[in-house]
């Protein structure tokens, strides 16, 4: 899967040293909490979209609220999300992706 972050898969931090396999990929995380968050996020995206695979994920924002742009083939979606202190999804909703032509 293509990602925009070079650090932790959920928050882009380069602190920590956790490696976990998610959907067949070995990924870096800064802490176990972020592993829980990332797994929960991917599961929810797949449930919401019905996609069997996600080709790319681009995350932005911070702990107060994040967005992710995801693609599968030609399909694209944007979701808004935030987590509880235990890493469960507190908020998850579909959002409108801005048009590439919009000014």
């Amino acid at each position, binding site marked *: 899967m293509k990602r925009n972050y070079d650090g932790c898969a959920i928050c882009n931090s380069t*602190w920590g040293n956790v490696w976990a396999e998610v959907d067949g990929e070995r990924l870096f995380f800064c802490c176990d909490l972020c592993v829980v968050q990332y797994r929960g996020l991917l599961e929810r995206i797949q449930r919401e979209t019905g996609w069997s695979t996600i080709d790319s994920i681009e995350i932005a924002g911070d702990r107060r609220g994040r967005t992710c742009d995801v693609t599968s083939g030609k399909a694209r979606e944007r979701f808004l999300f935030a987590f*509880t*202190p235990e890493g469960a999804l507190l908020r998850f909703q579909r959002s409108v992706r801005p048009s590439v032509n919009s000014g």
Partner: protein
Amino acid sequence: MTKCPACLVGFARGDFPALAQHLVGRAEESDSDHVRWLNQNLTRRKTDAPALVAPLRAYFDLGPDSLTRWVKIRFISKFFGKTPHPFVAALQHPTRATLLGYVVEHQHFLRQWVRSCAFIMARTDQPEVIQYELDNLSTEYGGSGPGRPSHYELLLRMGESLGVDRAVVLSTPPLPATRRAVEQWNEMATREHWVAVLTAMHSLELIANRDLVDDGATVHYFDPTILSGEEIPTAAQDFLREGYEADVGHSDRALALASRFAGELDLVEEVQSVFLRSIDLFDDYLIARLERAGQYEA
């Protein structure tokens, strides 16, 4: 003494190299509290310990300001910054679910509040601190007769006005984040210096301090217009108004005492760290209110 703001382990006063080494070491072990503190307060990019020393010193430096001012700036940055805390955002014009989330989790907070304040009173030798805590506990928990119910009683009445009986509220266990926060506040109260506990607990009353907008807060705790009209029940207005009117005095008086005694007793650095730990717990606890609110959403 200086302390780690993530776990409160102590180091010699001013020993920021040791604190930096500790933070880097615990982050290398992927401890989420330490990684979180570094991510949110210093940098998301891993560095070695020597490179963290100067940023740490700068972060803790009061500069020309008082401890009170430093505390307010940190508090505003965390809860009332460009993106206010999600619970603060939700409370601007709260739904029934948001208010019920507040009621169910906050009763646990207030029960711990009494214990934390009692520890301060048990440990201080300063009569004005004892008087302050007695006044505070009277407002928050004891009440002053039928005409002046406590904040705790007003909280339960708010729940009842929204259709949830107090027996249900009082028998509902806390969510994990609330439980963890309450446990750690209790541990803090039993272990830390009373000046640090005074600061750590009463700084939390800044959340409803309406004067924070004069110090840079982008919003109030809630939109004051909801205190009139029919947007929320009268019992909810009564509860929110109590905090709105009391917490300016509560937080400002406590921080004035904290600044004075932290200076006199040479405790500034440890007070700063205990405060920082407390506001991280408070951040999570406020999220728990929203999590609970989710259970009441239609």
